[in-house]
């Protein structure tokens, strides 16, 4: 899983594709939060923006894992059984 994050050394240069759905607004973000400079010395560069070493990455996983481990209601298995029974003679290879 970490791999998918790390293996982006791919060839597409940033912005090479047409940025569909992106608006000129993006520029606004350039001014960023310079007010946070107080903690400036703290900045670390871990090179993997969503990797295990970033706080955001960790929380994201934690958030998602919690959702994934939620117990699945029976209704979905029942639904699939119904769908299966609805077309029992279907033959595919």
């Amino acid at each position, binding site marked *: 899983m970490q791999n*998918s*994050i*790390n*293996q*982006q050394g*791919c060839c*597409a*240069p*940033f*912005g090479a*594709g047409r*940025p*569909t*759905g*992106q608006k000129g*607004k*993006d520029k*606004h973000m*350039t001014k*960023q*939060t*310079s007010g*946070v*400079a107080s*903690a*400036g010395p*703290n*900045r*670390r*560069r871990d*090179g*993997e*923006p*969503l990797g295990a070493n*970033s*706080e*955001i*990455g960790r*929380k*994201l*996983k*934690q*958030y*998602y894992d*919690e*959702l*994934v*481990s*939620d117990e*699945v209601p029976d*209704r*979905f*298995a029942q*639904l*699939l059984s119904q*769908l*299966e029974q609805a077309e*029992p003679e*279907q033959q*595919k290879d």
Partner: protein
Amino acid sequence: MAASLGFKGDLLATIPGLRAFAMSLSQNADRADDLVQETLVKAWDKQSSFQPGTNLKAWLFTILRNEFYSQMRKRGREVQDSEGLLTARLAVHPSQHGRLDLDDFRKALEQLPEDQREAIILIGASGFSYEEAAEICGCAVGTIKSRVSRARNRLQEILDISGEADYGPDAIAAQVMGSTVG
């Protein structure tokens, strides 16, 4: 018959992931389960169009995502919130720097526009590659990368994480692009 059972089993196995993705998109448990149900029915009907050996999970996520956006359109809701407005509304301040409460994180995630939220979830949590995520979202790989980095910037802003926030989006985009590690 056997193939059909296999397909059913494969579907069952992806349900937890589908529910998590549906929940991340809709932020609502009932809607999420409706989305999953709809996805399973559609997937079943279209199973002959699925190429065995290709990525079933990505295929299902695509169906679910399409269903989500088509439901949103029916509800007449704006797909994209205007950027910036929501963020400004609520700033979450973790009690300790670098130590985020999961609840705070959840709230912050809710504030992201859908396109950014889904991108960061697909890449950072669901385990898809940028290429797969682009396929699922029907957009260019570069678009996914830019959404992920904007989502990340936004989350850092909302959560008031300093540190990397000092880098402008270009620097972060460059990182996302996979500059050398270490």
